[in-house]
C-alpha cells in the first residue's frame, strides 16, 4: 500500500528540525536548502506549515517530466532519478502543492521519497507533528484534519454548521 506523510499543523512549532534531519539523511550535511520538506511561516496569520510531497495517486509531476525521470521506487513511492533529471523544472511548475523543488546546488529536482519507508523527519520531530500513513481511509482523514487550520485561515474551506 502506498505510504505518505501526515502533517499535523496543530502540533508543529515551526522548529524546522525535520529539514535538517532530511538534509543529514540524504546529503550528510546540515542544509535546509537541500531538504525535501520545507517549513513555511506566515507570521501575519500565525501559521507554520510544513510542505512536503503528498505522494499523489495521479502525480502531476510525473506526467510533466519530459525525460521520464520520476519513477516508482521502493514501496511504490515516486522518486526522482538524479541521472535522468535535466533540471528543467516542469515538475515544479506542475505540482500544485510545492512538493517537489529544484535543489539549489545540483539544480536537479528533489522530492520526498519517505527515506525508503523510515523517514528521518518523523524521527526528528520532537512534537509528534509528522507521522507515516498509508492509504487507509482513517489516515487520509487524519491528513485532512492535520491541515485544516491552514485551509480555514486562507479561506479555502468554509465551515458549515448544521
Amino acid at each position, binding site marked *: 500500500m502506498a505510504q505518505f506523510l501526515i502533517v499535523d499543523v496543530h502540533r508543529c*512549532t*515551526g*522548529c*524546522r*528540525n525535520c529539514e*535538517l*534531519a532530511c*538534509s*543529514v539523511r540524504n*546529503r*550528510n*550535511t*546540515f*542544509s*535546509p*536548502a*537541500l531538504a525535501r520538506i520545507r517549513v*513555511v511561516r506566515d*507570521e*501575519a*496569520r*500565525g501559521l*507554520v506549515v510544513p510542505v512536503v510531497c503528498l505522494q499523489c495517486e495521479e502525480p502531476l509531476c510525473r506526467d510533466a517530466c519530459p525525460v521520464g525521470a520520476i519513477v516508482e521506487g521502493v514501496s511504490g513511492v515516486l522518486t526522482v532519478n538524479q541521472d535522468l533529471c535535466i533540471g528543467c523544472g516542469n515538475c515544479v511548475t506542475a505540482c500544485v502543492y510545492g512538493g517537489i523543488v529544484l535543489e*539549489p*546546488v545540483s539544480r536537479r529536482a528533489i522530492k520526498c521519497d519517505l527515506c525508503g519507508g523510515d523517514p528521518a523527519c518523523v524521527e*526528528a520531530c*520532537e*512534537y509528534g507533528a509528522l507521522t507515516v500513513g498509508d492509504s487507509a481511509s482513517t489516515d487520509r482523514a487524519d491528513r485532512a484534519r492535520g491541515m485544516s487550520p491552514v485551509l480555514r485561515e486562507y479561506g479555502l474551506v468554509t465551515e458549515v454548521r448544521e
Partner: protein
Amino acid sequence: MTFSYGGYAGRYAEVDLTAGRVHVREMEREWARLCLGGTGVAAKILWERTGPQTDPLGPDNVLVVGTGPLTGVMFSPAGRMMFASKSPLTGIWGESHVGGFFGPEMKYAGFDFVIVTGRSPRPVYLLLQDGEAELRDAHHLWGRETGETTQMIREEIADPTVKTAVIGPAGENGVLYGCIIVDQYRAAGRTGMGTVMGSKNLKAIAATGSLPIEAHDMERYLEANGQEMERLRDPLWTDSLASLRKYGTTDLVAIINEIGRLPTKNHWTGYFEHAEDIGPEVIAERYRLTQEACYGCAIGCKYVYRVRGGRFAGGPAGGPEYETIMAFGSNCLNNDIESVMYLGHRCDQLGMDTISCGKSISFAMELWEKGILGPDDTDGLSLEWGNVDTMTELVERIARREGHLATLLAQGTRRAAEVIGGDAWRYAIHCKGLEASGQDPRAHQSVGLTYATNVRGADHLRSLSSLEELGYPEIVIKRFGREKADEILNIMSPKYKGELIWDMENLYAVVDSAVICKYGTMWPPVYYYETFANVLPPLTGMSEWGDVRYVIDAGRRISHLRRAYNHRLGITREDETLPHRLLKEPMPTGPAKGGLPDLDQMLDEYYEFRGCDPKTGLPRRDRLEQLGLGFVAEELATMGLLAG
C-alpha cells in the same frame, strides 16, 4: 574557501560602513580554538579593537554579530545568536543574545561572524547571501517600524524565507536601549545594541543562503548529540518541559511570585498581589494561539498571542515573555495583561528593550509618588502607578525622544537620575547602568552576586543559578560536593555562593560562545561542561575540546577576557555592587519579607575563585597567563590594573 573545522560556516565579513566596503575573510582558527564562537570571539575582537577612547555611538565603535559552532546543527536547544559592542547605555561591555532563525540562516548564508565598523554616510542594510556580503540602500526603510521593515526586505529580496535583524525608530533616534528585532518578534533586547546599529546608519542585516554546514565526523556527532538529547528527555524533566511548552516563560510570573522575588512597584517589593491577573493561566486560556520554537529546538517556549477586541486588540504576534510582563506589569503595579501585551508589542515594533523601557517608566512613577517629579516636569502626563494611558503614551514618546520627560527616560535610569539630582538615584534600579531584570537578591542571595559581577550590568543571563532557586540536591552534590550542598541549596545563605556563581559564569560563557540557549543549562540544569566535551570534537574536529578541563578553562578564559575589557574602562570592585534598594532596604512584604543579600561575603569568595584581588576585583597576572591571556596581562599591567 575551506575552513578546517567542522560546524563553522568558515567565513566572516568585515564591514567598513564609512568606506562602504565589505571584505569576506576566512574564519580565524585561533578564535575557534581559544574562544569557540559567540561571546568568546566577540570579547577577543572588542578587546583588540575598542577601548577607553571608543565612543559607543561614534564610528570607532565596533559591532560584532556572532554565531557559534552549535548554531544550526541540530543541537537542541540552540538556534540562537548574539550581538556585542561597547554599550551606549552603560559605557562598558555590551552583549545581547536572541533566538529565532537569523543565526542559523547567517551560517547557511556562509558567515559565522560579521564585524561592523565605521558609519555609513546614508542609511544602508547588509545582505548576506551564499558567501557574499553586500551593502544596500536603506533610505526607504529608515524611520519605519521593525515589522514593516522586515516585510519590505523580504519583498525586496523576493524571498519570503530571508531572515532579518532590524532596528526600529528607537535605535535610529538614539534611545540608549534600542534593541535589535529578529524574525518579527524576537529581541536582542539589552544594552542598546540597536542604538549602535542606528548610530552607524545600519538599518538591518538580512541573510539567506543554501550553503551547507559540514560536521567533522557526522556519524559520531549525531551519536553524541543523541546522547545529550536523552538527558533532556529524562522523565525527571517531562513535566517541566510540558509546562514550558504550554506556558513558556510566563509560568515564571506565578513561580517567582510564590518565592517573593517578582519585582513589584519599581523593585520596592518582590510580591505582587494581583500576579494572577498577569499570570500563565490567564494568558494560556484567553490569549495564546499557538506555541513556537526556535531553530531545531525541542523545547518550544515561544507563544503567539492574539487580543481579539478592545483598545489593545492585536496579534497574531509573539507574546510578552516573563521579563516584559514583570517590567510593564507588576513593576508598574499594572494588572491589565492586555495592556502589557500591547506595550510589549509596541516596544518590539519601535525597537526598544522592554526591560530598560519598563523600568525607566516605573522609576518615573516612583519619582512622581515621592514628589521628586511634578506636573511641571512631565509634559502634561500624570504618572500614578498602573496608569496605562500614561504608559502607552510614554512608550511612543520615548521612542521618538519627544518632550522633556521622554528624552530624559530615553537615557535610562542612571543618567536620568543624575540629571534630576537630589534623591532620584535611590529609585534608579540598575547595576553599572543597566536596569535590573526580573529578579531580586533579597529573596535569592546569589542573584545579588550575579547582578553585581555580571559584565553587562544587572541581569540574570551571565550567571543565574536555578540550583537553589528550584532545589536540585543531586546536581548540587555532583557539582560541588556533599559537604557544601546544604548551604548552597539554602536560597538565603550567602555561603559558597561565590563558588556557585563563579562556576555558573564560566559555564554560561561557554554556552554563550557555543551559541546555545540557557534552557538546558540554566534550567533544567541538564547540560554541563561534559556536554560540550562530548559534542564539540566530532562536530568541529578540534580534539582539545574533548577534555572537560579544556572546556572549563575556556569558560574561565572568556570570563576573564570580558572582565578585563571592563577593568580597562575603569570598572573595579567599587562598581560591582547593587542598587541601594536591593542592598539596604529589607524586603518589605511577601514570602521573602525581611530578606537582604550579604553581598560582601559572596563577593570575597567570588574574587578568590576568580583569581582576583578582593580589594579591587582586579585579576592576578598568573591567572591570566595560565589561561592564555598573557596579552591581556601585559596591557592591564601598563595601566596599573593588575592585582597587587
